[in-house]
């Protein structure tokens, strides 16, 4: 009977074998993963790493990247009082124009740190008035410092040593006294000198003032127009190096764009040679496929090292490294797309008497165009990120700049500025490429 043959044949042994296999997999797979993680825990020596970690570095980086400090220093050797941003010589205030929270009076000074905290410097003695604690009186002597503290327990934020006094009652106020100097740090939020260098005539001007200045005919610098002068001062800011950062970003984008377009242009024709339905010659097909594997397998890392040797540092090196690797990847993807096309469309075009080129143009290209565009855009996106990394290997661009600023490890606000700009650029590339993809591919479907 027909119904008998349709009845599913259940063999109990088979079922049990499958169930047992599944059960083993469910137990063994998590076990294997855990075992692997334990193994790598020891292989990476994570416990040793954790003991050597320096979390305070992260804290320094975090505070320093969002705040800056102004130093008020009395140096006994030179005998003078100085007010400077980050203690830098290039950003020292004129003693006649110090900020209004500092009062200078010859050898003496009065510093108002806000919230009731004040420091008075008289000769070699500093009086630090801390609300809720009392007056700390410190005198620098020939051997070290002598400190008189208020009665009671010494708080955590105070380090009283015969050689140095370090008082930091809150994160943004600090007094240090040693044999040679008295130094007060007052912290402020934000990035100092971000727009213009301290010595620039434009320093501290508001946006509307700048706007008025840009339109005014009185030239600050007789050689340039005011607008150009403003742009020039901004880009040439020695602390932030806006100009260099923008050029580096531009280089990185250029590497990604040039590399991806070049790879696509070389990958497409080669893909025809690697596709079964377009190249009957097996030798040619095999050769092209191995070429793709070779280009991909060498990897961007090795390509960029080779190109750096040949062409030196710069965007050209990065672009070529990306182009070589991705010719392989894109070529492989395109050839797979070509093998999956619908042959009926090609035959239809052929039936109208089209030539070989016309068959490709109207029968093949329209079918793989969506794959082509979307893959190229995906690669453009990921190459923007790759370009920052191969830049750090030495190809230049924003990656190299980032590594360099991190190595000097002094101005963390510069590092975070570069990081923020890089991420903004990557996100912008991401968004614009997915916008383009939607327009080009989905727009076509609905239209």
């Amino acid at each position, binding site marked *: 009977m027909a119904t008998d043959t349709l009845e599913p044949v259940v063999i109990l042994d088979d079922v049990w074998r499958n169930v047992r296999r599944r059960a083993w997999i469910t137990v063994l797979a998590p076990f294997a993963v855990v075992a692997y993680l334990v193994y790598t825990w020891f292989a990476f020596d994570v416990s040793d790493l954790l003991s050597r970690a320096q979390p305070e570095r992260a804290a320094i980086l975090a505070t320093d990247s969002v705040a800056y400090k102004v130093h008020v220093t009395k140096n006994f050797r030179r005998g003078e009082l100085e007010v400077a941003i980050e203690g830098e010589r290039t950003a020292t205030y004129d003693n006649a124009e110090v900020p209004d929270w500092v009062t200078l009076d010859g050898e003496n000074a009065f510093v108002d740190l806000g919230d009731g905290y004040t420091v008075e410097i008289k000769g070699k003695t500093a009086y630090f008035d801390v609300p809720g604690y009392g007056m700390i009186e410190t005198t620098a002597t020939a051997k070290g410092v002598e400190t008189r503290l208020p009665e009671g327990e010494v708080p955590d934020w105070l380090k009283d040593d015969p050689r140095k006094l370090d008082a930091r009652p809150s994160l943004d106020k600090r007094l240090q006294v040693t044999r040679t100097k008295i130094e007060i740090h007052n912290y402020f939020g934000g990035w100092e000198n971000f727009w213009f260098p301290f010595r620039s005539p434009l320093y501290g001007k508001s946006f509307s003032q700048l706007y008025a200045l840009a339109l005014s005919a009185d030239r600050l610098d007789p050689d340039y127009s005011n607008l150009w002068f403003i742009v020039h001062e901004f880009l040439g800011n020695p602390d932030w190096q806006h100009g260099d950062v923008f050029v580096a970003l531009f280089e990185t984008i250029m590497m990604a764009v040039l590399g991806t377009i070049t790879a696509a242009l070389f990958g497409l024709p080669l893909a025809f040679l690697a596709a079964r339905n377009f190249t009957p010659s097996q030798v040619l097909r095999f050769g092209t496929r191995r070429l793709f594997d070779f280009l991909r397998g060498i990897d961007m890392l090795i390509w960029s090292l080779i190109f750096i040797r040949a062409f030196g540092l710069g965007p050209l090196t990065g672009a070529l490294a990306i182009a070589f690797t991705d010719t392989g990847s894109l070529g492989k993807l395109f050839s797979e797309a070509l093998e999956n096309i619908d042959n009926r469309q090609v035959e239809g075009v052929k039936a109208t008497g089209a030539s070989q080129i016309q068959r490709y143009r109207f029968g093949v290209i329209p079918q793989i165009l969506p794959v082509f565009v979307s893959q190229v855009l995906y690669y453009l996106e990921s190459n923007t990120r790759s370009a*920052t990394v191969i830049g750090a290997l030495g190809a230049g661009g924003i990656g190299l700049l980032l590594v360099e600023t991190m190595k000097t490890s002094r101005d963390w606000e510069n590092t975070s500025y570069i990081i923020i700009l890089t991420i903004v650029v990557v996100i912008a590339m991401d968004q614009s490429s997915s916008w383009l993809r939607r327009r080009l591919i989905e727009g076509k479907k609905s239209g």
Partner: protein
Amino acid sequence: MAVAALEQEILSLRKHRQLYSMIGLLLVVAVLVSGYSKSNEMNSGGFLQGLSKFFDYPGEIVVEAWQAGPAFFGLVVHFFPAMLETLNIAGVATLLGGAMAIVLAMASTRNVDSWGPLIPVVRRMMDIMRAFPELIVALFLIFVLGSSPVPAMIAVAFHTAGALGKLFSEVNENIDRRPIEGLTACGASWLQRIRFAVMPQVAPNYLSYFLLRLEINVRASAILGFVGAGGIGQELRRTIGWGKGAGDETAAIFVLLFLTIMAIDQLSSYLRGKLVGSGRAH
């Protein structure tokens, strides 16, 4: 009459399209030409001068490797532990990132009954995780934790979580909802629904993307080694830094890296083919 008008319209549409294609093509050519000439200018060495030197370095390495003779294979074996470290970085990063991605994907797809208000938040989070170049996270962690494979692992895992999370949630969007509804009717909790209705449907695709990512991560970990994260990249930087004389070691690393990447590529595309059918191997 109507046919003539239609023909007119089709012709004008075609003209428009041809114009747009033309403009697009010109734009691409302009970008290529101006970009290459500009970057040639910005490069410290020019293209034409460099072209003659292109084979110098590979040649130098090959000659030195040839001179090393059979000892060359000893060198290749010598760098095995470093390569293994790179593979471990990629492996752990893919595992941890993948696990994280599953959580993110389950929290960000309407189709699997994620909690509504969470969906846009998690999606933006994944966008940001994807946008972070691995280099930045790695450099920051190397600064805090010191030179070790762990910073690279965390950096790669972070990016992987975002990238895979997006792909996984796309897979989630295409599943059949009937098993979920069936389980809901029996009073299954959300976790039970995910475990018994969603996971069996998405597992093959997840595994396939997971393998693809492993492939990508091996390359990424090798590169990150170069900025001080350990593994084969660090060895490579050492031998390259020595300049002349270490060419055989550099060549050994190149060969090892090439063979490993090829092997992983082949293995993963074979396994992916088995998982989701050869037609959608990528």
